[in-house]
């Protein structure tokens, strides 16, 4: 279960493990930034609000009792931070509220994409292209496993049923697919300048 990973990471952060918070950040940064972009259009402000949301989450984490899922709790913090930001800037939040539970499925990246400069957009598109190429070049069994996981969100057990193979095999196939994709994108990401 995905929340087990979160639970363990949260437990570690509460004990003062900074690396665990880094892992949580990496796990949710894209999602939170995407969610914030639903409210805030300016890309610099999106960064500021995302930063503030994670800082608030870090401060509040000792009080997080785990009664709700961590990502739901984090999304709520991000939404409230974004709304407060708009109020502070005397701007109204979007009329249609965002369902926290559906936050990760929302389409909100267009705001950021619009404001990106062509050079950056090219880089993003290149990244997507490299991932697609890497998946297309995979052996069929790896491609099916990673596609069912990444695009359909199936669990390993469900994929095992679909592919009629043991769960351990599914796990191995997904890992090998990820390795192949990672080999392709790693050089692109390591040389990228941080835009700020």
């Amino acid at each position, binding site marked *: *279960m*995905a*929340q*087990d*990973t979160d639970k*363990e*990471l949260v437990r*570690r952060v509460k004990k003062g*493990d900074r*690396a*665990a918070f*880094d*892992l949580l*950040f*990496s*796990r949710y*940064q*894209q*999602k939170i*930034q*995407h969610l914030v*972009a639903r409210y805030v259009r300016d*890309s610099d402000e*999106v*960064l500021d609000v*995302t*930063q503030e949301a*994670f*800082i608030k989450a*870090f401060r509040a984490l000792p009080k997080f009792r785990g009664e709700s899922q961590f990502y739901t709790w984090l999304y709520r913090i991000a939404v409230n931070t974004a709304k407060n930001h708009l109020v502070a800037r005397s701007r109204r939040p979007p009329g249609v509220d965002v369902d926290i539970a559906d936050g*990760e499925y929302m*389409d909100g*990246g267009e705001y*950021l994409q619009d404001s*990106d400069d062509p050079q*950056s957009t090219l*880089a*993003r598109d290149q*990244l*997507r292209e490299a*991932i697609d190429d890497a998946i297309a070049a995979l052996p069929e069994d790896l491609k099916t496993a990673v596609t069912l996981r*990444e*695009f359909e969100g199936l*669990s*390993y057990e469900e994929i095992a049923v679909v592919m009629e193979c043991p769960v351990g095999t599914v*796990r191995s196939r*997904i*890992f090998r697919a*990820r*390795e192949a*994709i*990672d080999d392709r*994108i*790693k050089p692109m*990401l390591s040389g*990228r*300048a*941080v*835009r*700020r």
Partner: protein
Amino acid sequence: MSEKLKEALSAAVDGEADEFELRRVIDEAAKDAGLRDTWERYHLVSAVLADRASDASIASRQALKSRIWESLDYEGANAEEAVAEAPAGAPKAGMPLWMGRAVGFAVAAGVAVAIMFGSGVLDETPTGQVATLDVQEVPPSDADMTRSDAYMMHHVQHTALNSSGVLSFVKVVTYDRGESQR
């Protein structure tokens, strides 16, 4: 970084690692920046495939993490500084609570003694000499009293009409009683 560990990392990304593996992955990630980077890229691929990644979010991921830690560290440093600059009586880290209270009591007692000496409470020399100089008490004339009464009545009426609460009415009543006694 072994293949087995990386496979466990991949499973942990999907929430499919067992408890033992998960703990091992997190333990190793705490020590191994390369493992943390791999974790980040695996999540990034998921975000890109789900169209949840923007270029800004991709480009800013390291800077954002640094900014968050800088901000948290700055707060932490300020909090430590605040503890260091706390009043002398405040218990400090490593100081037993009773000792902190004792120090606080000693400081409070010292301040009280200083105030008593400073204000002349314990000084035997009278400090109100100017006030006790002989002053001739001259009874006011009737004209002075009439003018004073007029000023006073005007003042209390104005206060009663232009302020809230009952205090101003109390003044009027008090004044009127004094007036009737005269």
